[in-house]
């Protein structure tokens, strides 16, 4: 058995670098005059293009009290522009202004404690104004255009550090894509804003309130980050969402979503030298905006004592443990990635083997080495669900034992080899293309000083040693650096 394994390792050391090299040579990068970076990756498998438009804007960029506004404007960017969705722009514009006035009058009345009757009257006027505005527009015009043209995966997501817009279309729709998104970047109209506020409230209920994992995440992050915005719920609090107003949302949009803060990636049936002309024609028309404002995002002070929180909830118990740690490009962040794989990647990983297989104490265990974002110092997080009658206390004890072992003994050469092989294979799989490759390239280009970084990371992982792992484990897996959140069954066990 051992012999065979060593043979295998020898073979892997000589894996061809050709596929990565090929891909690397095929990627074309252009920078438009307005600062937009465009990456194109030709892949002729099928006549389709996967688009990813990523901005370096997310939850951390929100002002206090406007929590979740980045996510809200992500929704609003699907509502169209004057030339996409309006049935009569001058009239619709006036109608939208009337909605804003009605909302302001209502807000003022509530603020000064106006009579119930007056508030009812103003609410009715506000609702009436919304109905008038809705008559003058198509409800979801961007979706309509892409649906009609055979889209797949039209979607967007907002993180703490970034926002990205994704869609895949037949390759001859390149110009349609550019026409739509260049217009959205210049002229987004936040129509049906207050209806969308209600939608986001439902999204919050669904993801953060009625889902035990979402609910536990919220209390966990709030405890782990007392100052840094990673401690705020990405979707915002209920009060914050109810307080959204069009002017504040538009101001956020106009402050941040500019071509010089974005990367556009096209993967698929493209011919870079030809297609960049069309990209320039449309995306090049979008004016450059201000650079990222200095936001004075407060850094999280070093943690000085263990923090423990419990959430009583109508669900079975679960456990989340986080340790503060540095982020990329710190070498320690890469070491943490290796530790992540050693602890929970696969059935032979340390925590899975110990908690799930040997002790039969957990249904499952998982970890993440860069949570909940990556731009600022973040957390190494371990999550586990106990198997009754075992408890979260049992799991904590077992996890700490394994973390101590990581500090006290070097990991084995076999473990390191396994992680290196998995890293290499995972990296080659990303190169298979599709929407995943588009997103990965956008991410590296925007945050890691250029997409080329993808091709350099493997070398970093390959030089990480057993000693470094021990050092990093000792430095960060300490009691005082720890936040523990436990979901306790309402009226029951933990």
């Amino acid at each position, binding site marked *: 058995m051992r012999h065979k394994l060593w043979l295998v390792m020898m073979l892997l050391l000589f894996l061809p670098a050709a596929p990565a090299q090929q891909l690397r040579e095929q990627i074309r990068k252009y920078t438009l005059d307005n600062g937009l970076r465009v990456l194109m990756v030709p892949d002729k498998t*099928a006549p389709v293009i996967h688009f990813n438009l990523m901005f370096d804007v997310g939850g951390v960029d929100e002002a206090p009290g406007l929590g979740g506004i980045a996510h809200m404007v992500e929704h609003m960017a699907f509502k169209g522009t004057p030339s996409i969705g309006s049935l009569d722009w001058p009239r619709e514009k006036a109608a939208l202004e009337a909605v804003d006035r009605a909302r302001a009058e209502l807000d003022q009345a509530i603020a000064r404690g106006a009579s119930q009757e007056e508030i009812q009257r103003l609410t009715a006027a506000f609702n009436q104004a919304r109905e008038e505005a809705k008559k003058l527009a198509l409800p979801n015009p961007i979706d309509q255009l892409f649906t009609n043209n055979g889209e797949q995966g039209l979607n967007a997501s907002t993180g703490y550090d970034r926002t990205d817009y994704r869609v895949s279309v037949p390759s001859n729709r390149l110009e349609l894509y550019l026409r739509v998104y260049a217009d959205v970047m210049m002229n987004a109209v936040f129509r049906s804003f207050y209806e969308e506020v209600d939608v986001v409230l439902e999204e919050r209920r669904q993801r953060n309130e009625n889902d035990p994992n979402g609910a536990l995440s919220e209390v966990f992050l709030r405890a782990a980050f007392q100052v840094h915005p990673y401690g705020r719920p990405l979707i915002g609090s209920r009060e914050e969402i109810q307080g959204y107003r069009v002017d504040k949302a538009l101001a956020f949009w106009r402050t941040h979503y500019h071509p010089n803060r974005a990367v556009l990636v096209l993967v698929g049936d493209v011919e870079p030298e030809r297609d960049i002309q069309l990209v320039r024609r449309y995306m090049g028309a979008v004016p450059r905006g201000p650079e990222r404002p200095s936001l004075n995002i407060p850094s999280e002070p070093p943690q000085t004592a263990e923090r423990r929180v419990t959430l009583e909830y109508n669900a079975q118990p679960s456990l989340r443990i986080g340790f503060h740690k540095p982020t990329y490009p710190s070498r320690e962040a890469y070491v943490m990635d290796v530790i992540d794989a050693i602890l929970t990647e696969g059935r032979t990983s340390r925590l899975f083997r110990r908690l799930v297989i040997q002790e039969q104490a957990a249904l499952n265990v998982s970890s993440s080495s860069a949570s909940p974002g990556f731009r600022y110092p973040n957390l190494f997080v371990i999550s586990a669900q106990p198997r*009754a009658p075992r408890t979260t206390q049992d799991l904590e004890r077992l996890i700490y034992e394994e973390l101590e072992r990581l500090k006290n003994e070097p990991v084995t050469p076999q473990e390191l080899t396994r992680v290196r092989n998995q890293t290499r294979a995972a990296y080659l799989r990303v190169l298979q293309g599709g929407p995943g490759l588009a997103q990965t390239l956008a991410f590296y280009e925007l945050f890691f000083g250029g997409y080329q970084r993808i091709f350099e990371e493997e070398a970093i992982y390959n030089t990480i040693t057993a000693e470094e792992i021990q050092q990093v484990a000792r430095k960060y897996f300490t009691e005082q650096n720890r936040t523990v959140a436990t979901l306790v069954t309402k009226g029951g066990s933990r």
Partner: protein
Amino acid sequence: MKAIWSLLGAALLPLALAQGVPSDWPDPFKMQFPRLQPAVIQPTRVQLSNGLTVLLVEDRSLPFVSGRIYLQAGSIYEPDDKVGLSGLFASVMRTGGAGERDPGAVDEILETLAASVSVSSDTLFTSVAFNTLSENLDQVLEIWADVLIRPRFAQERLELEKGRALEAIRRRNDQPTQIAVREFLRRIQEGHPAGRVSSAASVGSITREDLLAFHQRFFKPNRAVLAISGDFNTQEMVARLERVLRDWRPGEVSLPSFAPPSPKPAIYFVQKETNQSVIYMGNPTVTAFAPGYSELDLASRVLGDGFNSRLFLEVRTKRGLAYATGGAQTQGFGWPGFFYGASISRVDKTVEVIELMLGQFRDLRERPVSPEELELFRNNILNAEVFRFTSKQAVAERIARTQMLGLPADYYERYIQQIQAATPADLQRVMQQFVRPEEFVIVVVGDQRQFDKPLSSLGRVVEVPLE
């Protein structure tokens, strides 16, 4: 195809092109593009000497090989008192050791090679897949064949996976959506094995002998199809497969047949303290690609597919009553699929939302859809056809399933022809023929103390207790 865009064009014409964009930019609603034809991927079909059908597609672009074999061994064939068997079978088949290797050795070598062998099951099939760097193909193929033909089902791993399955059962009432989906699938497929739900007792009673018997009964090469793609030479691969599968002997498999589901229309209500209600409603219709299916598929897209479907527009966009809402005609193979809608919406508007949803189904029966709506979803299907060919492995797997299901080879071309020919009257006809809101199974999970009206105002309510 032109109706909607000329109509919208007329509305937009006086003001288009001057709203914050250069005047020479086209109106996106008037941009016309030809429908692209996919570059069809045709796998090579080979029959091995033991009767196994293999579909192969070479793809030398990256150093990987993937494969998946399908066997007619789904959950509908589990005995009534052993519901949960196929799921447990799949996990212990992969994790219980294989051939000469004990469970730990299989995991160790696969994870060191950064390869995977996985077993999964659904109502109809169990499938055994692998993915590996091509350098390690021989070793991984050998392990895959061991898992497929010579699983050991180690007793201690069966106990482990049973324990985990019981814990999952203990946790299955944690999320309201999970409760609603389970209850809806159970009620709408009542009377058919697909409508059964596992219990602590059914899982607890499963033995190693049950797993061996399941394997013995269904795993025959002449009743399986293997789809394989990646970095290999086809002839060499066939020789490899002959070698690693040489001990696998063909045999008879007799599959029982089942009466179709016979759901009992009612409002099935599950009390759960939450501030949203999860609502599912629908009835069984036709099997996939049977007469009426294509038109029901289109009608269901008008009802619930995406931002411009009626449920989305009425429940979400116009009223802000839900974040998640939609519907579909499901693909039923062997027994009818169902036509359904769902919403996760405000608890204090539960009955209002149910009525709003029912109204959308009724409207599709009472009036023809607009030509614009029909064109939108027809174009979506036609233009998205190119995405059926973005992955060689996915194409090979689709053809494998097509064969296992006994669908005609040209089923998709026929479907496309029907999509092209469908009229608003056709959609109304199938809605009237197959979708009957007064006979719906409706599942509601929510907190009835906060409902706007009692559910009984809508019809007969059956309270379903949570175990």
